[in-house]
């Protein structure tokens, strides 16, 4: 178990290093002038290009630049934003809480809706409730997040203005719980609905497979009530692929929930990324990309560990 963990962590670090190197080469390989021009944009005056070349030290040999870049990464120094002149790490730390709250809040919701819906569907396949859910799932999967989001904002502001729900930037719950909830509820529901649709499908399929297994028949044969058959034997055994997907999804979303954040004006990592790409704010782009990769690597390690707890047949070696 420990050996496995250590190996996976080392492997994860290698992946991150490869991501960092690739990102570095993408932006910095090439003659100093053309790199500076690329960074500054085609219409930037020559002075700006020169200034960029100076501040970033693009004249130095590529390897020296690379060593400086990696050294900075190790110290947690991701450089300074071109636009706001703030350290990238500060920008990320400012944006992270919004994304964390959004993803974890939505995750709780979508697991409850998705797994619950999947179980309801699977225990009575081809029944009216199963078919109804199937239609809803299809609708959920087909509905673009921004359409749902805009629809929700419209309903909240124009039809039910008394609800108090409104779009807006993230406010820490430790400062103002009321404001926190009024801005977060809609993004949570919006993100959760789309995700839940996928989880209903996944849970339903996995449950149907499991409920067809011999051990379900054994459980019934020993006189266990149907409820326990469904949950203790069926769902418990069916949960493994769902958890796998869950870990990967959460990891991916933590890297930035671009559309949901943008629709609701939530100041999260996704927003930060969009802004930095639009502004050509290179250090921020690099920082956000590495952060996203780190979340995905971490999520994968956690999923593997969770797997061995969920399924005793899996040995980590």
């Amino acid at each position, binding site marked *: 178990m420990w050996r496995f963990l250590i190996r996976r962590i080392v492997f994860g670090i290698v992946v991150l290093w490869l991501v960092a190197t690739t990102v570095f080469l993408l932006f910095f390989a090439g003659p100093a002038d053309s790199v500076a021009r690329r960074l500054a944009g085609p219409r930037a005056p020559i002075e700006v290009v020169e200034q960029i070349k100076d501040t970033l030290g693009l004249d130095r040999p590529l390897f020296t630049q690379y060593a400086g870049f990696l050294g900075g990464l190790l110290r947690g120094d991701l450089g300074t934003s071109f636009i706001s002149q703030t350290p990238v790490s500060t920008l990320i730390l400012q944006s992270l809480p919004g994304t964390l709250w959004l993803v974890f809040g939505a995750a709780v919701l979508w697991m409850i809706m998705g797994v619950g819906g999947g179980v309801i569907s699977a225990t009575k396949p081809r029944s009216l409730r199963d078919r109804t859910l199937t239609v809803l799932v299809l609708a959920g999967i087909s509905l673009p997040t921004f359409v749902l989001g805009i629809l929700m904002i419209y309903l909240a502001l124009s039809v039910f203005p008394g609800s108090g729900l409104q779009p807006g930037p993230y406010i820490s719950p430790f400062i103002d719980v009321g404001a926190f909830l009024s801005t977060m509820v809609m993004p949570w529901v919006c993100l959760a609905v789309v995700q839940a649709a996928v989880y209903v499908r996944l849970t339903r399929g996995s449950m149907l497979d499991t409920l067809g297994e011999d051990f379900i028949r054994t459980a019934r044969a*020993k*006189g266990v009530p149907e409820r326990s058959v469904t949950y203790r034997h069926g769902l418990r*055994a069916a949960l493994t692929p769902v958890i796998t997907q869950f870990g990967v999804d959460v990891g991916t979303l933590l890297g930035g929930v671009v559309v949901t954040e943008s629709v609701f004006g939530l100041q999260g990592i996704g927003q930060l990324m969009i802004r930095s790409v639009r502004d050509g704010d290179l250090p921020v782009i690099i920082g956000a990309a590495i952060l996203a990769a780190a979340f995905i690597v971490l999520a994968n390690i956690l999923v593997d560990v969770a797997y061995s707890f969920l399924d005793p*047949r899996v040995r980590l070696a």
Partner: protein
Amino acid sequence: MIDVTDLSISFGTTPAVRNLSFSVARGEVLGLIGESGSGKSATALAVMGLLPRTASTTGSIRLDGEELTTASEKRLTALRGRAMAIVFQDPLQAFTPVHRVGAQIAEAIRAHQRVPRKVAARRAVELLDLVGIRDPHQRARSYPHEFSGGMRQRALIAMAIANGPDLLIADEPTTALDVTVRAHVLDVLKTVRRETGAALLLITHDLSVVARAADRVHVLRHGQTVETGTVDEVLRAPREAYTKTLIAAAEAGDRPAAARPVRTVLEVRDLVRHHPGVKAVDGVSFDLRSGETLGLVGESGSGKTTLLMEIMALARPQRGRVTVLGRDTAHLSRRDRRRVRRDLQIVFQDPSASLDPRMTVGAIVAEPLTTHGRSPDRVPELLEQVGLPAAYAARHPVHLSGGQRQRVAIARAIALDPEVLVLDEPVSSLDPTVRAEIVALLEDLRAERGLSYLFVAHDLPLIRRVADRVAVMYRGRIAEIGPAHQVFTAPGHPYTRALLRASALRDDDPTPATGCRFRPRCPLYAELPAAPRSRCVTEEPEISGESGAACHHHPGEAP
């Protein structure tokens, strides 16, 4: 205790059971016998009220006078596990993989009795002990996959008797087990009947099980009663032709020795494969010669499968050497490995698992051909060679019977004209009559193509019929190897003798660290005086040239 009258079951428009009537009294064992598809299992499920919704039943099933066919689901749940219990076949899938065995047995207790968790857990341990599982405290904390097949089957029995049922149904309780474990499980069922006085409905296709354990027998075919009577009447003097065929299929005759083989196609020397904590293969040597069939027998856990996998891996073994067609697998070039792969093919036990359900039969058989850059034109011819219509190429495996699927697996294995076929329990998942057909096909193919077979099976009469030579494996080593007639008629190793008699040997003793590993179970060792005994304790016996038995005290040698 249980009265079934005029029971008919159908799935959609397909009848599974027609007008079946039988009854089992308290303390009695009724053997329900027939091939798969004869409606045995459907009958068992109908009694338990566990038939799928698509099934419709008519007639009457009375348990202790209570009508079950019209009982509510709630009432059935209350009866299941308490008044009537069932031991399913295929114990691999019968336990929920994510819960501990002890907890699953305790769950059965707590479903019917209001007892604290701790009491139920203690009772589960007692039950495991009752069915003969060593170290039950520890074992109760194991997960199902950590049990051997025999142990799982026993644990299933423990779970079924947890609430002292009046009726116990055992559906093919021994089919998946090998000979010695089979004897154990039947003994356990006997003990259970004695202890609980339950009526036992024993469902099987194996006549020897019925002969050993049942009082009366009921022969089923296509869902209808063929013949019924006491075991003596039916097995000794069957009245119906079908019963006679069943009995004939069960009795295997001797077969004449084949012509002398010419060269060695597979050579295994001192092969070792240790997993952490398990010496799965611990120094195995044997030869397979061209045109011969070498039977490999042994209990589950004896290392047969690991041995096969080591051979098929075509890689450098942990220790020892494997030489296939004159090529040492430790030093194969890429090209040679490809060539050896072509000449060494395998047929697995379960064709429903070894054939990709998404591929058509034609694609399955064509795959080895195209992989090795040959034209798939031969597919229809190959199918015909294994006795399938060429038109079957368009079908998917699900639409074939078990026997037909195994034919497809064989066609795939012979597609590249290999020289050696490894057969891993190729017929043990099939019905007796189908089994005979597949065995005949394998023998024809061998004769026509001069194939060599490494034939793994736990069915000894089958091995006796097909093998020229036999190797008996025990705990990672070969206990005895020799010509089939010699091993079967004059076994040199006490373990072989026990296997042939199917005597009950405990199957979960620890393997001793030094000396003869069979010692703890050896009936010969138990009777030896102290002086010759010491050799068994200190020295690992090797296979001696003449007798082929790895025993210090086999009959050929003075003790």
